């Protein structure tokens, strides 16, 4: 196998894991938050159906100071409210959210990096 095939294989595995975690986090945590009247309006802007799962994961995964900054900005309506969400979730929810979010972001951005390197001709050797 060539280098890029290893990387693509790795990405496919990461994508499958992300997919499984997305469904699990959506079903276990976000479903609960969507039903809770205290939190159901605080899940951020839903560009497409299901995007609130990603907003919630981001709010649970980001370090506190970053979330606070985002929520103070004029764009705060786009993000989920981390303070109230953290109050309404247990430790397992927060763990699941962080794992899902960071695996998603890491594998997605490394995908973008591979595309960039590929277009620069890094794998043609």
């Amino acid at each position, binding site marked *: 196998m060539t280098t890029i095939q290893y990387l693509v294989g790795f990405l496919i595995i990461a994508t499958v894991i992300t997919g499984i975690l997305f469904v699990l986090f959506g079903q276990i945590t976000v479903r609960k938050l969507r039903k809770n009247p205290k939190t159901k309006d605080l899940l951020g802007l839903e560009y497409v159906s299901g995007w609130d799962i990603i907003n919630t994961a981001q709010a649970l995964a980001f370090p506190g100071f970053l979330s606070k900054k985002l929520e103070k900005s004029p764009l705060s309506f786009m993000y989920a409210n981390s303070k109230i969400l953290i109050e309404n979730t247990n430790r397992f929810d927060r763990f699941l959210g962080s794992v899902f979010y960071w695996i998603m972001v890491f594998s*997605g951005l490394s995908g*973008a990096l591979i595309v960039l390197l*590929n277009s620069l001709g890094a794998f043609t050797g």
Partner: protein
Amino acid sequence: MSEILLCNQSLNSQALQRQCGINTDQLSALSCEAPTMTAPNTPYLIGDDPSGIGRGVLGQFAPAHVARELTNLSLSFGGDNVVALAEINAKLKEYSIGLMGASTSVYAHRIGGFAGSVKDYQAALMEYRQAARSGSPLKIAKKQQAHAAFRKMQSQFRNELDVVNSQVRARRGTPLTSAERATNIARSSRNAAKLNVTSQVQANNLVKFSQHAKFLGNGLAVIDFGGRVGSIHNRFQAGGNWERELFVESSSFAVSALTGTAVVNVGTAALGLLVVATPIGWVGLVVGGVAVAGTAAAASIGMNSVVKNNSGGVYDSIMKWISGVL
């Protein structure tokens, strides 16, 4: 080129002569006989068909659900526009692979919105047509609704409409450039429409368009997935290695969607931080948003092609490894 006639009610030869200036002798149906009357929602070929293309086109339009939808679309939009819209729709499918990857990108949303607004406009026109034909007192209100739907479509999707209309050459304007013309077409007592179909490919696009027209607004996902399933099925029918094709198509879809999602998410967070840290205004935000969407689309289109080119090799290695272990 073949000329196809579609009517929404049965017409005898006098009515046909009066409405369209067509003699029934010129018509032929799929069953090859010269009809004395035209049946509703049935395609007829006008003129002779030395090349045999017309017959093939008739065959493609013949299924009842295709013919009915196509008749309605042609009567409310006019024949030229239906052909143009079908072409646009076929192009969208080519782009949709990349757009779907960035399923969240602003542009995918926009195309969905465009399809939706054309659909709303069409629905309003059809309602007006019904009201006008039956002389209902709601006629004027329906006409206003159609005009409102047109204005909404015009104001939001001017660029897309220009693309569609640049392919249509109608001197009096088309329902997509003038609401007045549209309501006139809808009101007039025409119940037959002619389609000029130049090729089998065009006919195929028309068939697909009439089938998609109903749920176009719901998503490019359906279309994109349909395309991918189609290529797996082709491989299966050709007796090829369809499991490998399945692996390639599904993994490239999933990975490119993931890439687009991550870029959009991180991009919006970065944008939010930028807003706090710097005094950029709303203009900067819009520019930033477009940049994020563009990056996401580029990344996922690139990802789609990288994975398509390489996941076949990954599949082969996995299979080799498995057969080595067993």
